[in-house]
């Protein structure tokens, strides 16, 4: 199955700043997904990123706050802009592919963000 990596693995940021999270996959995939998981909570889909088109955002998430790039079939970035403490979460990227248990979404290791 594919290897999915994220950078950084964790960061502590000051409010009002921005952080860009990178997601790299070792095989070409059509769709990449970005999720947020707040402490002790479930996962919420932020947006779906297809190569060559604008990302599709879910209700409650906007491009100005979470701009996404998808320059090729193996890479995507998510920027968390103008951060506030409420943005403290784990941010996860995922890709859908056929892996060990079948065709499903497989997740990167996550980026743990703390905003002070």
């Amino acid at each position, binding site marked *: 199955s594919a290897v999915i990596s994220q950078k950084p693995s964790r960061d502590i940021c000051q409010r009002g700043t921005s952080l860009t999270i990178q997601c790299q996959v070792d095989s070409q995939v059509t769709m990449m997904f970005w999720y947020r998981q707040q402490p002790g*909570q479930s*996962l919420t*889909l932020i947006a779906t990123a297809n190569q060559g088109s604008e990302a599709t955002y879910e209700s409650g998430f906007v491009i100005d706050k979470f701009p996404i790039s998808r320059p090729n079939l193996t890479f995507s970035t998510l920027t968390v802009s103008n951060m506030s403490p409420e943005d403290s979460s784990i941010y996860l990227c995922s890709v*859908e592919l056929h892996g060990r248990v079948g065709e499903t979404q497989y997740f990167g*290791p996550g980026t743990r963000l703390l905003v002070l």
Partner: protein
Amino acid sequence: ELKVEQNPLFLSMQEGKNYTIYCNYSTTSDRLYWYRQDPGKSLESLFVLLSNGAVKQEGRLMASLDTKARLSTLHITAAVHDLSATYFCAVDTSYKYIFGTGTRLKVLA
């Protein structure tokens, strides 16, 4: 709006016991997935259920899907401490996954 609910939210059980986690969802879907998340870690795929009546088993875990009842179950047989984790179900709707609330399982020695 699609809702995916799991119960129980928290489960503390003795080693060697059996238990079932339930995942109910509110709209039609033929595809359901189970994941495991250890503290501080990402999600690990456990099962892919693609049709009504699907049953998958791995080790002490068995998952099933009843699309007519909009219900999936994750059955734990003879629990061991290593199964302690949070378990999520996720329903596939138009390539978007909607995750359940999660069940935090603690297996006591």
